[in-house]
């Protein structure tokens, strides 16, 4: 029964990869990246729980790090909007200054 957790976390990572590869809306790309990070944190928490060791601090630090990366993506999203007035990555030829 505990294999469900492993399967669900792996599915989250895979679906996140597919969404990032398939969509062109930068907000959906951000949601895909969040899905991947949620799946990896869940898988890591499962691994720690199986080892019967206290590990909540490690999971907290990894959660904080992934949340920070998400905020950085949102900053890039706003800049993307301010410069190109769109969130569709198909319309962008170059992001160079």
């Amino acid at each position: 029964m505990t294999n469900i957790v492993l399967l669900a976390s792996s599915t989250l990572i895979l679906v996140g990869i597919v969404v990032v590869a398939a969509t062109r809306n930068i907000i959906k790309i951000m949601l895909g990246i969040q899905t991947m990070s949620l799946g990896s944190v869940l898988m890591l928490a499962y691994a720690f729980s199986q080892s019967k060791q206290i590990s909540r601090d490690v999971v907290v630090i990894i959660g904080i790090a992934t949340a920070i990366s998400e905020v950085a993506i949102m900053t890039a999203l706003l800049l993307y909007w301010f410069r190109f007035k769109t969130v569709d990555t198909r319309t962008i030829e170059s992001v160079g200054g």
Partner: protein
Amino acid sequence: MILELFTIAGLLFVMLSLFSGRVYAAIILMVLGTISLSMAISELVGFDAGLIIASLYVSALIIALLIWLIVATPNIPKVDKLSIASIILGLFAFAALFLSTQFVEHLATPKPISRDISFADYVLLTILILTSLVTSLWFVREGG
């Protein structure tokens, strides 16, 4: 049983979110999925880890919702070769994953390195936060 329940509910919410047509509905469903998965994480490693992860991720999603209200543009779906190829490869990978988790015997048990949190970890976390802040400020300044 509660762990599996929260995991399946979170997976369902996240899948609905990612394949939802409307962006604000996708963000709200992702909030629900994040909360369910954080409850599963709290069942696994303790309630404080799940609480912190849920609060950070949900606050980021609320900011994303506000940003979307500012930058809302019509969503133009387009199916190209890359989208189809990625979905087909994802289906193959999911089938392989399902078969391997259900029918292949696990030989290795997960065993991470165990140690207490130290002062160096907090220093590294502070450096990470400072680097992210400085980089974001630099981005904002360069972006005008």
